[in-house]
């Protein structure tokens, strides 16, 4: 008994002795709740990026790099709590996150005060980078491009003249809907109405019935896939005709599953980047990801890209210091990323600004083309 205990103690001590000091990279996204499928596929991308970077060699010599995963449940309150937690931990030098603009926006102020590099993979509301925080970077296109690109497609290519707008009243949804509306009006199409829905609500039949009575050519929804799926399904049930289009928040296979493939057939959506399966530089990543986690999520590649860049900045800084990591990030030029050579403008927004256009056919997302916004 006592011998076994001594052995155990020895093992523990030996384990401690070999431990390098740790340096941490934060990761925040909705890991539970209805948006968890997207959050989890982002997490997988981040984990893969860290593992591959480690396999290539030391990130910070003498340090063990760890990913701290926190769950924001797509709630701004939780996002702020997570940001404060990370800011208070001296081992954390940078953070990748969040998913939702409504979370990234308030969290960015905390990271700015903590002088901590934040790279959001996918929060696309343009206002976030206009706050003037030099700690903020993002690896996707923004909604002031996504909205107009969708409006152009709707007005010019689908020829829709009478459009009804819906959004989920979040920073992302309302922002995207307004960008879409501005461009659509400029193109001479008529906006029949613009209404908000509540996240977590299930019954949209009264709203869709009201829209049915107006007989629009197209309904545009700026929001996330859990509500999008219900809208698409209930739209078929109330017999609302015309087309349906949404933004990148709908881009998750779970959308088609929840909405049923029949009801989702023929809907359109834009994404904040081109089809990752068609980018030559991303193919190695796609293969590695699919071998390990199965099919790739909408935001996996962005999380991988953001994590890789954050690790690059840590390596470049060469020391466990937030300011040094931030300073290193500012020297980034032509980083060979998944989507090509990455560079960021003075606001921290990526200069790779493709908007992808997808439709749903036979229960699958099908890439149509890269859309233009002017």
């Amino acid at each position: 008994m006592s011998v076994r205990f001594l052995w155990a103690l020895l093992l523990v001590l030996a384990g401690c002795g070999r431990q390098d000091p740790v340096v941490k990279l934060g990761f925040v996204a909705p890991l539970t709740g209805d948006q968890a499928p997207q959050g989890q596929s982002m997490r997988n991308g981040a984990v893969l990026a860290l593992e591959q970077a480690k396999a290539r060699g030391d990130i910070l010599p003498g340090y063990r790099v760890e990913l701290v995963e926190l769950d924001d449940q797509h709630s701004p309150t939780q996002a702020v709590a997570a940001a404060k937690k990370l800011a208070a931990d001296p081992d954390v030098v940078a953070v990748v996150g969040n998913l939702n603009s409504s979370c990234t926006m308030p969290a960015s102020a905390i990271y700015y005060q903590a002088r901590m590099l934040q790279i959001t993979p996918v929060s696309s509301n343009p206002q976030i980078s206009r706050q003037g925080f030099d700690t903020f970077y993002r690896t996707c296109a923004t909604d002031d491009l996504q909205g107009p690109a969708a409006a152009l497609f709707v007005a010019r290519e689908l020829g829709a003249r009478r459009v009804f707008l819906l959004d989920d009243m979040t920073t992302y949804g309302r922002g995207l809907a307004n960008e879409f509306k501005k461009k659509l009006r400029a193109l001479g199409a008529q906006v029949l109405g613009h209404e908000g829905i509540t996240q977590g609500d299930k019954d949209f039949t009264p709203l869709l019935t009201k829209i049915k009575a107006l007989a629009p050519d197209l309904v545009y929804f700026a929001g996330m896939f859990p509500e999008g799926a219900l809208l698409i399904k209930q739209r078929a049930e109330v017999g609302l005709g015309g087309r349906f289009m949404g933004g990148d928040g709908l881009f998750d296979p779970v959308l088609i599953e929840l909405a049923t493939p029949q009801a989702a057939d023929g809907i359109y959506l834009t994404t904040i980047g081109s089809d990752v399966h068609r980018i030559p530089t991303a193919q190695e990543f796609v293969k590695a990801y699919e071998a390990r986690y199965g099919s790739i999520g909408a935001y996996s590649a962005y999380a991988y890209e953001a994590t890789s860049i954050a690790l690059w900045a840590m390596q470049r800084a060469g020391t466990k210091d937030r300011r040094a990591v931030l300073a290193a990030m500012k020297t980034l030029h032509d980083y060979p990323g998944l989507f090509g050579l990455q560079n960021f403008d003075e606001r921290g927004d990526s200069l790779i600004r493709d908007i992808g256009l997808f439709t749903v056919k036979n229960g699958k997302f099908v890439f149509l083309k890269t859309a233009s916004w002017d």
Partner: protein
Amino acid sequence: MGLTSSILMSPFHLLLQQLANGFTIGAIYALIALGYTMVYGVIQLINFAHGEVFMVGAYLALTALLILGVAQPLTGVALAGVLTACVALAVGGCGMLGWGIERLAYRPLRRAPRLTALITAIGVSFFLQNAVMLLYGATDRRFPAFIPARRWEWGGTSLTLLQVVIWLTSGVLMVALQMLVTSTKLGKAMRATAQDPNACRLLGIPVDRIIALTFALGSGFAAVGGMLFGLYYNTVNFHDGYLTGLKAFTAAVLGGIGNIPGAMVGGLVLGILEGLGAGYLSSQWKNVFAFVVLVGLLVFKPTGLLGERVADRA
């Protein structure tokens, strides 16, 4: 679905459609509201875990479907069999759950201050939510639609088979409950317990068993509501019990808490108000509209629509 726009609906048919939509969700609210109102009627406790029992009912029905491997709409004998299995598992499971909650969480506190039981109810609610999250995962689960997707159209107003099923199920269950309460021995014992539990004990009525049965019965109704909810929206999530439970509670208060026909009327009125609010005003004010009506009503008629003034118990 092509580029062809839907036919313009006349205001009359639009109103009819909104009423049908509101009536459907109202029927589900009414089924859940019965549980709140029955428990309140018998022991004056607002069982805040009731919304979670409803959610568990939806998950149990889903479990039955997963075990049977149902993914497509069914007809005939298969439909009847699957429906029976779903109802049996959901109602049986939730009935036992309701009984267990009463036995473990509320009965030991029967003589404690009322606030204690209320806090316990919130605790039970958290427990059930997290238990379901751990068992079934935190993401939305698809609830297979096994009722055939039949629909009838009349001048732009459409009605689906599922809506009719929801109306009929709720209607039959409510009439059955009303008959049980007014004209059976058990119903009489329940009404007696509601009036004066101490006098009941003196007369040899097993008060504890009656209370437990009331919980089980109310939970069974919530389970049917949960199954219909899953069928209607085709997704279930572990936090669905919260908002829907709150709405059903509102319906119970609207109709006059403690009053069984009141819960039915309250559920239907709330569903229709929500439908009309979202359909004619604005969908972002849907919940606000329903609760403003509740507050307004309670200011002028504090006992609810059908509630009567009851003498405070000594």
